[in-house]
């Protein structure tokens, strides 16, 4: 079958990027490039909505399949061009559509090398979309790695602080993880009983996927090792303690829109990989299953949550603070995945659903937080918290929406963060009561650092030694309408999912049930 919608969705940004790179010329091209790029992400957003809405929940399974079998037609690596969405990937495609558009809009004020900037941003969106819809392992890997080049350029050229150092650190961490993943992919492929790269079974196209074939098969390498290689690659990207140290640097030095993409969707590629590959492939493998390490995963998750939370409180840079809070929040994703339990009978689908939803909500909430920090920084030119204070009077809109993000992240009921976290806790508690109990303390930490930063930056009085001169402070202006478009785009899903979670959770549940087989 070749449905075509996914191919168009994935490659539209890249195609526009190519056109922009080749044909945008002249003095006035910057403004055109901005409009064209924003238009492209807008169309991609519409397409991603079409993917999400078009997914038939009654039918379930993998839909909108684009299948070209003989992509690499050699026996040594029979790889096919196979795209498709199921309940797990459809919401993430939507998330990428939303954030891609928000990031392009949020880049309105970029002045430096505009043409190149938007080219990389659009290529980044293609890479992320490709990761979520690829159902061939090699294709998945290619998109997973391809994302590095745009990210590296975006951080290194348009970043602040120590951009090249941070960009290099990001690339080296991810490349190292990626190398392990490639080895794991090849090891699965050369296993005689598997010998395919299809990540799921699609009966309509006669595709039998790895999860089915790996069940009970003797792998070419020990299953624990292959699992570990995949896990390592995703743990770097998620990131989990102790592999997280690239994240604060990359976030702090990246331009605002890139931080939005990084926190919003790039980290989700790892969560998605954990669910699709580590959980999907390793439930019935010979000699080793994911159940054997679920306990260890819950412990790492709890450490990540608490460690991330404690470090966050100590931060004095607004962006760094939010970056560390991501480590804490992505720990909840890991905790939810650990709900798979020590045996198939113990598996809690609720916890897994919570992990999936946490990815979605964290994407919008943290994306919004970075956007608001960016808006504030554009005006005050400092992110140093002790230098700020009393900004509420000058920029109420920015303060309000920063609070929305903050309250969402600490888990205020009626906002989406609450739903996700409660699902993770309720789902995982019966399976791993101690780890969940410890991790739940992370919510208290979140309340602490969120309320404290809001209090220090936006409320209270201006500090005795203000970082802003009176002149700057007096001339501060609030966000204007063009700044508010991406803000609204990111804030809306926080409320919608908070009040009406089933719009996303029903979808995720279909995906999780399919992964659990």
């Amino acid at each position, binding site marked *: 079958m070749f449905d075509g919608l996914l191919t168009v969705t994935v490659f539209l940004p890249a195609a526009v990027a190519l056109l922009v*790179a080749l044909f945008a010329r002249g003095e006035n091209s910057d403004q055109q490039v901005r409009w064209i790029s924003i238009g492209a992400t807008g169309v991609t957003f519409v397409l991603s909505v079409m993917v999400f809405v078009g997914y038939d929940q009654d039918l379930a399974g993998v839909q909108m399949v684009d299948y070209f079998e*003989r*992509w*690499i*037609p*050699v*026996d*040594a*690596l029979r790889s096919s061009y196979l795209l498709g969405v199921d309940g797990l990937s459809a919401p993430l495609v939507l998330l990428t559509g939303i954030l891609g558009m928000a990031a392009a809009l949020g880049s309105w004020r970029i002045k430096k090398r505009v043409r190149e900037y938007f080219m990389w941003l659009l290529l980044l969106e293609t890479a992320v979309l490709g990761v979520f819809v690829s159902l061939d392992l*090699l294709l998945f*890997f*290619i*998109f997973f*790695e*391809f994302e*590095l*080049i745009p990210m590296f*350029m975006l951080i*290194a*050229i348009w970043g602040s602080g120590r951009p*090249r150092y941070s960009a290099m650190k990001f690339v080296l961490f991810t*490349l190292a993880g990626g*190398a392990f993943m*490639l*080895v794991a992919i*090849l*090891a699965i*492929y*050369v*296993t*005689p009983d598997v*010998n395919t790269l299809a990540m799921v079974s699609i009966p309509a196209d006669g595709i039998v996927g790895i999860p089915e074939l790996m069940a009970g098969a003797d792998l070419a390498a020990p299953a624990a090792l292959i699992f570990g290689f995949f896990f390592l690659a995703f743990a770097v990207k998620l990131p989990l303690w102790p592999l997280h140290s690239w994240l604060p640097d990359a976030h702090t030095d990246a331009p605002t829109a890139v931080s939005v993409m990084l926190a919003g969707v790039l980290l989700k590629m790892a969560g998605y990989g954990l669910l699709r590959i580590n959980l999907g492939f390793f439930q019935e493998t010979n000699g080793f299953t994911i159940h054997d390490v679920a306990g260890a995963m819950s412990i790492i998750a709890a450490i990540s949550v608490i460690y991330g939370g404690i470090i966050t409180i100590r931060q004095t840079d607004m962006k760094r603070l939010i970056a560390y809070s991501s480590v804490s929040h992505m720990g909840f994703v890991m905790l939810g995945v650990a709900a798979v339990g020590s045996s198939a009978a113990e598996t809690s689908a609720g916890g897994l659903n919570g992990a999936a939803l946490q990815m979605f909500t964290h994407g919008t909430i943290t994306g919004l937080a970075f956007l608001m920090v960016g808006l504030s920084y554009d005006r005050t030119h400092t992110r140093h918290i002790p230098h700020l204070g009393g900004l509420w009077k000058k920029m109420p809109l920015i303060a309000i929406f920063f609070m929305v993000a903050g309250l969402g992240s600490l888990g205020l009921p009626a906002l989406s963060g609450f739903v996700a976290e409660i699902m993770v806790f309720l789902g995982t508690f019966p399976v791993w009561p101690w780890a969940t109990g410890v991790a739940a303390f992370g919510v208290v930490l979140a309340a602490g650092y969120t309320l404290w930063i809001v209090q220090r930056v936006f409320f209270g009085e201006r500090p005795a030694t203000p970082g802003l001169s009176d002149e700057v402070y007096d001339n501060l202006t609030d966000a204007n309408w063009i700044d508010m478009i991406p803000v609204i785009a990111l804030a809306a899903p926080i409320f919608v999912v908070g009040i009406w979670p089933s719009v996303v959770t029903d979808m995720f549940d279909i995906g999780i049930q399919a992964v659990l087989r």
Partner: protein
Amino acid sequence: MTVQDFWALSPEIAMALLALLVVSVDLVTRSMAKVSAVAIIGLAAPIILTLNLWNGWFGDPAVGPALFGTVETDHFSLFFKFLLLTVTAGTILASVKYIASERVKDHGGEFVSLILLSVTGMMLLVSATELITIYVALELTALPVVALAAIHRTKQGVEAGTKFFVLSAISSAILLYGFAYIYGYTGSTNLDVIMDRLAVLPTEAGVPFGSYAVLLAVIMIVAGFGFKMAVVPWQMWVPDVYQGAPTPVAAFLSVASKAAAFAVIMRIMYVAFGDPILMQDWSGLFAILAAVTMTVGNTLALSQSNIKRLLGYSTIAQAGYILVGLASVPANQVGATFAGAGPQGVMYYLAGYAFTNLVVFFAVIAITSRTNDDSIEGLNGLLKRSPLLAGLLVFGILSLLGMPPTVGFMAKVVVFSSALNANLTWLAVVGVVNTVIAAYYYLRVVRAVVFEDPADESTFSGDKSVLIATGVAAIGAGVFGLAPFLLLEFAESALSIVPGL
């Protein structure tokens, strides 16, 4: 000679005639643009004749043995002829400005004609199935290159030419020695007959290749071709010649000469030594050479500061990756999942590498012709000075490095995966480790181009002809990376020479 023979050799004949035509045109006109135009338009003839042999447009294609069984016009040779012709067209296009420059001093016509003659030799080489023919074709390939390398008549150029000539002569001598052993042992110079004789001749247990004579012969043959393929330990000439010779010649050497050498060594190994037991013996030999070549090439490249020398070492390392595919023979795959894709991987890698390397070399030609600076620092801030060339260069370098989704990555994955399946896991691991080492020096070039500040802010763009050649090569590399099946299916049908495939 029959009419059939003429058909079979028609691309080579057209090529030789074209070389003569180009020299004649050079006598009449002083305009190098006209000379190159004649050459490029004239190349259509051998290309059409090659396509004809593949498709059979003008009547019955003469696919099969010709000239008393000394050459074979099969899909394998046609695949390589097509690749060589494409590379030649690109090289000549990229040299249009160069041959008109002061540096060549009125030898532009000879330059083009020598390239065409050398390619004639290569085309004969890839279809030769008989040892003497192989040797003659090889000499025809090498001698024009000696003159090409020394065409500048500077101290460096003459040194490059002399070095190439002496080493080429020595390697030919070693090769001939190896051929002589084979002839003495089997009584034939025909590859098919050699295979039949080897199968019936008595073998000694425990000796690789069944006899010391054959072992010695194979080592000498591999050593002889190792020089052409730029395989360690026969790689010493590469950096010196690449740096001393004109850049278009280096580009031509790094791609065409290498492709032809790999083609002929594949044919010799798979046809003459295609017995499964012998295959396992030479697979081990190539595996060791591959590991050493990759590692030495990459390690020595780390400390280079001249871009042409760096590319020289990089081509050595790339030869190592290709050797991984050569070592991954079907016969090693006892208990493996599928028939081998090693040879297919070699052909895919060679074609992908050809386009990628041409992108890099052509971009370097375009850049250095403006900046007159061969050092890596000379590339500083290129992105600001010439965005298009910088983009093309970075694309080529990333493909050489093997960054997904470029053709370099695809080819590496196919080759390494063949190695895994041929029970050469250690070789695949060495390959992956080498890729990581290589990232260091490739990324140094990228860093200079993208991040460093230029010493000289002036902007420039390349000559139109070089830009076209670079662009076409880049499109080729891009397409073969995104759509590997385009090449791999050709490679598959070209591999009828490999037994069991």
